[in-house]
């Protein structure tokens, strides 16, 4: 059975909950958040810095196909292996603010696990803006594709 990601965003709240079950043992799921080379693979980014400990911090740089680099960073408040990560997250040079993330990892069976991610934004408005960003980017991309097709059709 294909597992699905569930997103819950209650009206008027400044949090979003993202829940996902994995066909992976808990240790492997957690390792995906722990090892820089694995993070680079699944997040498609470059890990500049990652200190998995209390008072630690991280810095990732992602480059898009056009060569634009986007930085992400945050401070790590809790790092409990196979259990929990609490950290801040910021997209650099954007007006999106800083979010606080609680990542809770649990085993469901020997080969299955679950991640519950709770994200707190500075305000309800900011959360709502972040939520609709992929929608806006989506319609923009669809529009650009359409434009390419029209230009090629000329």
């Amino acid at each position, binding site marked *: 059975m294909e597992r*699905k990601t569930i997103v819950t965003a209650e*009206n008027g709240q400044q949090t979003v909950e993202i829940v996902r079950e994995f066909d992976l043992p808990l240790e492997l799921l957690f*390792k995906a958040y722990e090892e820089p080379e694995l993070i680079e693979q699944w997040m498609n980014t470059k890990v500049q810095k990652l200190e998995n400990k209390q008072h630690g911090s991280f810095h990732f740089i992602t480059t898009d196909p056009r060569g634009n680099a986007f930085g992400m960073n945050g401070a790590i408040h809790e790092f409990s292996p196979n259990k929990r990560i609490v950290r801040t997250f910021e997209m650099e040079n954007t*007006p999106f603010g800083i979010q606080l993330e609680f990542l809770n990892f649990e085993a469901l069976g020997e080969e299955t696990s679950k991640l519950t991610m709770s994200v707190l934004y500075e305000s309800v*408005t900011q959360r709502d*803006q972040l939520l*609709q960003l992929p929608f806006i980017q989506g*319609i*923009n991309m669809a*529009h650009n594709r359409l434009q390419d097709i029209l230009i090629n059709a000329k």
Partner: protein
Amino acid sequence: MNLRRDVFQAIADPTRRAILVLVATQSMTAGAIAAKFDTARPTVSKHLSILTECELLAQEQNGREMYYHLNPKKMKEIADFIEPFRKMWDDRFNKLESVMKNYKKQK
């Protein structure tokens, strides 16, 4: 009235989409929005009123100025607004799962 169809008609226009992208991160006055386009000011005003009518944009009076911003209520009425966000995470986690399955095999 078919609100859903109206919304999608509203976003069928490239200028209106560009306006939505502009105000996605900050509220702006009609003047500030119009300044970003080569289009004549009345044309931009027309776009703003269409987006406001179908409730994609909301207006807010701040002193003497009227500010436009995305209407989050609308977003919740249309599940499609949140679906791309969910899809983004779903894709990301699918990738994580496949990367870790490969990693497991290699060991």
